[in-house]
């Protein structure tokens, strides 16, 4: 990516889940690491998240779910991104996500899944190293 341009991240809360402590902590940590962060707020549909990602021209979409709806909502976001021809955005996820669900999520295009206990420093590092543009 261009030197000097800040990494732009959309932190998103898909679904009806209201637990956004983690999303907000991550948003602030990414900001403190020099990234530009847009937080969607709660209750975003996959359609809204994809529209926001395109409109804001972000490099990264970071989604958080603690309700257990990740197996439905994460793949739906990936599908919509593909349908809109977006293939250069790094998508990561986080939340209470059982290990056994992670391979399936990665297969559909989620680059990494951060589970309870992950440090924000690891998230920052992963984004910096894996950004697609």
């Amino acid at each position, binding site marked *: 990516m261009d030197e000097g341009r800040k990494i732009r991240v959309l932190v998103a809360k898909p679904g*009806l889940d209201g*637990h956004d*402590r983690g999303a*907000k902590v991550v948003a602030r940590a990414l900001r403190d690491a020099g990234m530009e962060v847009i937080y969607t707020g709660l209750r975003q549909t996959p359609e809204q998240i994809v529209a926001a990602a395109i409109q804001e021209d972000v490099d990264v979409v970071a989604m958080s779910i603690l*309700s257990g*709806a990740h197996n439905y*909502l994460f793949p739906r976001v990936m599908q919509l991104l593909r349908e809109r021809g977006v293939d250069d955005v790094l998508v990561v996820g986080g939340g209470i996500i059982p290990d056994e669900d992670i391979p399936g999520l990665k297969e559909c295009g989620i680059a990494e899944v951060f589970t309870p206990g992950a440090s924000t420093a690891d998230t920052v590092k992963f984004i910096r190293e894996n950004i697609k543009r």
Partner: protein
Amino acid sequence: MNQGDLSGEYGRWKSGPYAKTCARFPERKERFEGSSGIEVKPLYTPLDVEQVDYVNDLGFPGEYPYNRGVQPTMYRGRFWTMRQYAGFATAEESNRRYKYLLEQGQTGLSVAFDLPTQIGYDSDHELSAGEVGKVGVAIDSLADMETLFDGIPLDKVSTSMTINAPASMLLAMYIAVAEKQGVFANKLNGTIQNDILKEYAARGTYIFPPKPSMRLITNIFEYCSTAVPRWNTISISGYHIREAGATAVQEVAFTLADGIAYVKAAVDAGLDVDDFGPRLSFFFNAHNDLLEEVAKFRAARRLWARIMRDRFGAKDPKSMQLRFHTQTAGCTLTAQQPDNNIVRVTLQALAAVLGGTQSLHTNSRDEALALPSQDSVRIALRTQQIIAYESGVADTIDPLAVSYYIEALTDEIERAAADYIRRIDEIGGAPAAIERGFIQAEIEESAYRYQMEIESGDRTIVGLNDFQIEEDRPSGLLKVDPAVGDLQCRKLAQLRAERDNAAVEASLAALEHAASGSDNLMPYILDAVRAYATLGEMCGVLRGVFGEYKPTVAY
């Protein structure tokens, strides 16, 4: 020894033996402090409680200011209610879990609803996709509620329901199920959470804007004061505020500020504070810092008693008694070495009991990974039973009272929380403070600081940032069958085909008309529930009249 001598002796020890030892062997930290930043001194002595007036500040159990507990005998009469929050998938499966828990010696039920239910969408709504039955049981209509409590006599159990924005509908369903069992509403015991302000600030399951939400809440207060007199009409909740990151002081302050807003709304609507005050209940978190938590519960009790008596002129002692449920802190559980969570939960539960809780949920060891399995829930319940039956801490009332540290900390927490409440009053009360984002910003700041303390190693979490091991993730986690969503949708389609749809339409039209006016909505909601109107239909009607809440604060 008089205080002057003590002061001299304390000075001698502090500058003598204590200072000498510190010089040779520095303490582990330069400054020790609790979650709220209150400094913890090396030693507490009678000098720290000089200002405490036993009769006025502590008093006796069951008497103002309730510092020592709300009942005269506390756990010597009866243990706290052991109430595990449970619910997942369908009403049938949750009904089985409730019966299991009751068989295992649980003494009250606590219903977890799924997110579509909490936000007033039917299971077949497009926004419900993927969420049905996940974080709790899916309830679309009275028919599901009948299944949920099948074979559980509602005059024999007390039931707590974690439901907020649509609390009136779920309470109406509970009343209607009881009617079918032949149980009158005035015999029902239980609690609805019904605390919308903390939903805006910390938990997120709001539907309507603040004003109509407050009307629904005061409607419930008014209706229940005569029709369901034993029901706890609200559970003013600090739990989720703490889970979102708040400190102990913030938890007390923001919860009681919300409480003040509800009392004010009801008084402004013309209700007498002593008609509804005795039915207000609270819900707090039990976090890791055992002694700070004990002091927190005691401080909250005293502060609320003073608020109800002095600010609202309550006369009935029951209006001044802060009765509370406690849940151990989910946010402290680690996915790493999850069996360690049993120990965390034990300490947290002990804090709740030493703090005088009326009921308790102990978290399960696997909750950082999934919904709890049956075995994990049983261990969590056994943890409470061991504290109750084996530890001896329940045999005398408020056993930590007059500990120099506990009393000093109780005072400090009360003072700091009262200062926060004063700031919130200046902003215009809790609703205004939430609208401006003040409370949310304070919570976020604390959450971020906590996380950074962990990442910098300033705060040790055993098994997470120290004492780690290589381990396999545990197996046997509970998984909700994704087919639950389809099943629930089929049940809904069948209901819509079989019920008297003209009666449903008529009851919804009456509800809509009443919502546009100023009547108490509870009777209209009960009529619609009895006609098997769905939760989504009822909330849909009210969404049309009241509109929907949109958060104003940009992050």
